[in-house]
């Protein structure tokens, strides 16, 4: 066990922060390290650890401020499980993936000739965890096109697409903004001018 860190430090706060500040910092941190953000990521265990640390720190601080009223953050249970009709090899491969043994999972998959949508999906997950994003996208797209109604496949595909959006948002949030180009400015001026004319002004 590690030495318990100062809970204020864990939440990135100055000592003596108000309850509001603690709650805000906590919400932001949970968003940042949420299991959704680290799904299919090799660092997900570390993110989980971090989240636990944040929860503990929050609990300590909030208890100190006021008793009761605390609602702990419950980590989502990410055990999605296989689809019921999946055959033995595929569910075994899925187990290997969950355990982090990508090589064994891949070997199993490569040795089967029966390749339903789930096969492509699992292959995609392996690529994703390994960092082969392009191959992963192609496999998961194939899985979705073969079984368009499967929620799990669609969700993974959506998450992949939205994670690129997340990065952009965090970038724009840091003040990274494109200034309006001349064309936009002209257009705005022109529109305002037209409106003014309509109203019979200038």
């Amino acid at each position, binding site marked *: 066990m590690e030495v318990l860190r100062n809970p204020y430090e864990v939440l990135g706060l100055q000592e003596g922060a108000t309850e509001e500040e603690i709650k805000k910092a906590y919400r932001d941190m949970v968003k940042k390290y949420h299991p959704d953000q680290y799904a299919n990521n090799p660092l997900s265990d570390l993110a989980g650890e971090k989240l636990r640390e944040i929860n503990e720190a929050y609990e300590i601080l909030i208890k100190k401020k006021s008793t009761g009223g605390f609602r702990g953050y419950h980590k989502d249970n990410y055990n999605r499980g296989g689809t019921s009709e999946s055959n033995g090899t595929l569910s075994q491969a899925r187990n290997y993936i969950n355990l982090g043994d990508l090589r064994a999972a891949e070997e199993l998959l490569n040795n089967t000739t029966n390749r339903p949508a789930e096969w492509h999906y699992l292959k995609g997950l392996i690529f994703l965890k390994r960092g082969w994003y*392009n191959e992963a996208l192609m496999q998961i797209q194939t899985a979705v096109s073969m079984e368009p109604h499967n929620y799990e496949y669609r969700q993974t595909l959506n998450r992949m697409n939205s994670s690129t959006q997340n990065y952009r948002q965090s970038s724009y949030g840091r003040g990274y903004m494109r200034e309006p180009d001349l064309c936009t400015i002209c257009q705005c001026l022109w529109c305002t001018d037209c409106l003014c004319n309509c109203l019979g002004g200038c």
Partner: protein
Amino acid sequence: MFGYIRPEKPELKIKEYDEFRAFYCGICKSIAKNSGQIARLTLSYDATFLALLFSSVSNTAPEKRVERCVVHPVQKRNIYKNDKAIDYAADVNIILMYHSLLDKWKDEKLVLSIAGTAALSRKYNKLTKKYPFLCDIIEKKLKKLSKLEEEKCSSVDQAAEPFAQMMAEIMEFCPVIEDEKTKKVLRWLGYNIGKWVYIIDAFDDIEKDLIDKSYNPLLYQYEYHSEKVCEFKNRIRNDVEFILIYSLNEIGKAYELLEVKRNKDLIENIVFMGMLRQTEIILSGEKRAKVKQSRTVN
């Protein structure tokens, strides 16, 4: 390396800019001291980022001094010195530069590159003794990369793999970091940096590789058929953008798990803004000359 990893200058505070320059000058001086004056010319922004990152996650802060140097003889500048993290980044810079020059000589037979290789070879031999394990891994990965190039590999992910793994090893191997958790995070961060650098460089080099008839994984994966270059780029832009931004997102997530002790704003500027800006510049095909203009930190 390539110089794609750089801060977004308009968003930097003056103090952050000064910090970055102190690292840049520090690594430049470290190269001069350990590898000689000629080796100094090989310094890139990428190595500066490595120095900054390693130094900021290590426990000891580097020592700051005010000094003059050959390149800026008049005005004294802040320089970080005697730091293990900076020295390591400087050594990595020399190792990679040596291999890149050797590779250029094999491919293009440029006289300048063999002269550079000759100038660096003695330093490189010294470094193979200092880091026998790391140098061995780097050589193996680069051999694998050139083998994939010879085979005209048609998967971008596969072609990028040796380079990405090499960066992962370089990150993990950093001598100032002992904590296993940090090593694991740095490894993934390095993997994704390597992937991003390799692929952005491939996209940037499409025109050049078509003229030189050299290998480029994008030309093979997306089956280039004598169409106009800009049409080809338009066709593949979305796919390439996906891989690049996805890698950046992974870099950002790995970064959030690091315990960064100093220079947070500066590193975040590079990771969340500078690298995105570079991605946009290269993808949109804005003149490369513009990038080169702002190459020096002055």
